[in-house]
């Protein structure tokens, strides 16, 4: 919704499509584009945005209960969503993700110019933006913020590696030079780590600042009682007139799934973040509760350690992938609330190829692949499972049964989730589970992490390396031609499926159960939400 209002007020809206080209459009076209964006946000099979019935009402306190607490508000080094989704209400970026996740739109910047050599971006900042302290936001703050994010070696610094330098020639202009032509730059700048904070933290030390952060976002810091609640209140200096509608938002920590549901039913909270899949059907029929299943970018995988003999063999990997009954997994684990994956890329990311054949369940083909492999009579292996994780335990049993006919005897190795993570990253496993959710509205980050072994995560800790695929990945990073990028990403998806470096399992939505009084709540496929659009009805 907010996008249409912006378009009308600004008279023009810069929309970056999936390829990185900006379209500048007149106010009339701005309306058309904005309506299309809204339609995209509201449409789609599983998409549900709370119906904005009537006029937005000002006031009210929203309470969101989630399973775990935040860790820190330091946007440059924090990786957990429970922190990110909160500080995104405080810090804003130059560009932000579109509601449908298929690109970015201008936010604290209104537009940019790209030099013919594609190495210099000149951003024009939005006028009248102030921090919650009342201080105006200038290019100096933007330079400081992006430089801060770039410097975070143990954090999100890698996302800005293409940036050579950031300059602030005048208060409303920011110039970014890149080391080489870099198509995903706008998507990178829309990452929360590049959110804008006051220059020099407004005079505070870094650690002091992130204890009580200040930004230009719709809400400002109130308090955080760790393990209990984190509260933000309305920013009276917010640049979007009339917003936010809510007086405050409080995130509480309620570890027990049942308690969160009971609190929602009792009216103590308005939003239950991630109710268990087993409760989705009953929540759908609960009066006064809306069960939102919002398209996400979460993709779950079976990972195979290619440093070990059986999994080096592509026929073994393909045999395993053909043996996986993804429909059964969706039914058993997600209670039908998802769909089988055909690619390692999720449908909500630009350049996802819906026609990519992937590998589907075919037990006969699995046997044929196994017969062609170096281990035609099968072998014994282990599957690492997070102890106490219901989903993984169910999946593991399905996989164990599915691989039996191939002569593959799978022993379940149950370890606590932290050990599971560590073992996976140290290649101390044979088969295991992993998943990915997108951080930026461009496939580059995912593809680099997934298929480029020289990236930090060694191809999702499988060590998969296909020279062609790696080459195409690098080409796609530097191409500004949408058609060419699409072609390259299609090739990557097809070849990665052929190489069966992962067992692509399924795509699942974000599950949010909320009170029918909540209006305007939408979660983008990246998981971000804009709470300035949310209001509470009677």
């Amino acid at each position, binding site marked *: 919704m907010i996008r249409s209002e912006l378009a009308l007020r600004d008279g023009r809206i810069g929309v970056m499509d999936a390829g990185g080209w900006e379209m500048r459009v007149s106010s009339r076209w701005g309306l058309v584009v904005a309506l299309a964006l809204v339609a995209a946000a509201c449409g789609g099979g599983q998409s549900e945005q709370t119906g904005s019935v009537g006029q937005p009402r000002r006031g009210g306190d929203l309470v969101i209960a989630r399973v775990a607490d935040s860790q820190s508000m330091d946007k440059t080094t924090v990786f957990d969503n429970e922190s990110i989704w909160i500080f995104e209400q405080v810090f804003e970026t130059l560009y932000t993700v579109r509601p449908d996740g298929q690109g970015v739109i201008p936010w604290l910047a209104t537009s940019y110019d790209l030099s013919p050599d594609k190495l210099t971006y000149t951003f024009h900042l939005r006028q009248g933006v102030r921090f919650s302290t009342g201080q105006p936001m200038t290019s100096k703050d933007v330079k400081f913020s992006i430089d801060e994010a770039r410097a975070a070696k143990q954090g999100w610094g890698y996302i800005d590696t293409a940036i050579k330098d950031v300059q602030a020639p005048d208060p409303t202009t920011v110039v970014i030079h890149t080391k080489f032509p870099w198509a995903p730059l706008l998507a990178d700048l829309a990452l929360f780590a590049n959110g804008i904070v006051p220059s020099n933290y407004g005079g505070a030390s870094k650690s002091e600042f992130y204890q009580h952060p200040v930004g230009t976002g719709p809400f400002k810091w109130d308090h955080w009682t760790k*393990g209990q609640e984190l509260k933000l209140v309305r920013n009276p200096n917010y640049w979007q007139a009339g917003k936010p509608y809510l007086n405050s938002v409080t995130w509480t*920590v309620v*570890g027990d799934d049942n308690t969160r549901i009971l609190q929602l039913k009792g009216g103590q909270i308005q939003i239950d973040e991630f109710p268990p899949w087993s409760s989705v059907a009953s929540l759908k029929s609960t009066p006064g509760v809306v069960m939102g299943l919002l398209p996400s970018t979460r993709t779950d995988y079976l990972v195979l350690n290619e440093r070990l003999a059986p999994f080096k063999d592509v026929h073994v990997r393909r045999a395993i992938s053909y043996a996986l009954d993804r429909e059964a997994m969706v039914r058993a684990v997600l209670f039908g609330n998802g769909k089988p994956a055909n690619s390692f890329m999720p449908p909500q990311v630009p350049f996802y190829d819906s026609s990519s054949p992937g590998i589907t369940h075919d037990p006969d083909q699995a046997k044929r692949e196994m017969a062609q492999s170096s281990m035609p009579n099968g072998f014994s292996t282990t599957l690492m499972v997070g102890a106490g994780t219901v989903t993984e335990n169910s999946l593991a049993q399905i996989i164990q049964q599915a691989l039996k006919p191939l002569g593959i005897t799978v022993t379940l190795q149950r370890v606590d989730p932290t050990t599971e993570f560590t073992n996976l990253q140290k290649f101390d496993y044979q088969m295991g589970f992993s998943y990915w959710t997108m951080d930026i509205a461009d496939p580059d980050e995912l593809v680099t992490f997934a298929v480029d072994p020289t990236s930090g995560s060694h191809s999702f800790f499988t060590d998969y390396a296909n020279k062609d695929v790696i080459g195409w990945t690098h080409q796609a990073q530097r191409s500004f031609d949408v058609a060419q990028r699409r072609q390259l990403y299609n090739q990557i998806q097809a070849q990665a499926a052929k190489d069966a470096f992962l067992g692509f399992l399924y795509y699942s939505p974000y599950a949010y159960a909320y009170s029918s009084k909540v209006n305007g709540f939408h979660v983008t496929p990246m998981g971000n939400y804009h709470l300035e659009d949310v209001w509470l009805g009677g």
Partner: protein
Amino acid sequence: MSRFAFVRRRLLHLVPVVLGVTVLVFLMIHLVPGDPARTMLGVHATDQAVAVLHHQWGLDRPLPQQYLLFLGRLLRGNLGDSLFYRVPTAQLVAERMPATLWLLAFATVLATVISVPLATIAATRRNALRDHVIRAIPLVGLGMPPFWVGILLILALALTLRAFPVGGYGHGIGGHLRSMFLPGLTVAIGISPLLIRSLRASMLNVLESEYVTTARAKGLPAHRLLLRHVLHNAVIPAVTVLGINIGFLVGGTLVVENVFALPGIGNLMLTAIFNRDFPVVQGVTLVFGVLVVTVNLLTDVTYALLDPRVRFD
């Protein structure tokens, strides 16, 4: 030995006990597999980022050196900074302690309120129907897992009757009192059967003793006899039971804290273990250790106050 000398000596005992606990916990948490840096970084864990964090947290040093550093900080009253929250562990513990203490206190009071009258009724009518009922029904409570009892109480008293909030800690003293009733009751239901049985047994013993017979012969009214002579003496073993169970209680609050969404120290510990947040695990264990030892000490002192025959030595 005077009472103060006894307390002082017991407080000194606290030092080796707590030190022993820290060594054990330090070794256990560091020797189990699992790396906090990799947990924090998730799929974004590049080797470089992991190394930077290890260095920042001092995890690249030898284990004995890490322990000595921890001990050195401890002597200066510093429990170190949480790796995940990036704030001092002492601050976290101080923030979380009140909820757990409230829970423990509330549970103890409720357990006493439930157990003393029931045990008295049961003991005064030995082998009558009400004695059997009082001995049998609480046993059901002992057999029910706390998370289940908690959910049942929420369903009945919070969701249906709306008499209490569905979990949470509340704000202000009034809010805490309302919020802590159901979790307190959940813990009390778990511990009351033990208290009722031990109190009933010791009351029966006392009731058969000669001084009670004498008091009865003197024509002492029944309520005075029960309160001044029987209960006063019978409560001593029950205090011991409660004291011994305090360790169990502290552990048991963890589940209850989770069900009722209480920001207690049990929850903090659980998260810290999962994340391998070493300073917090060590800090909380230290606090737990001190708490259990202190409560045991208080139990001994109370025991001595209740029973003049007990000597401090």
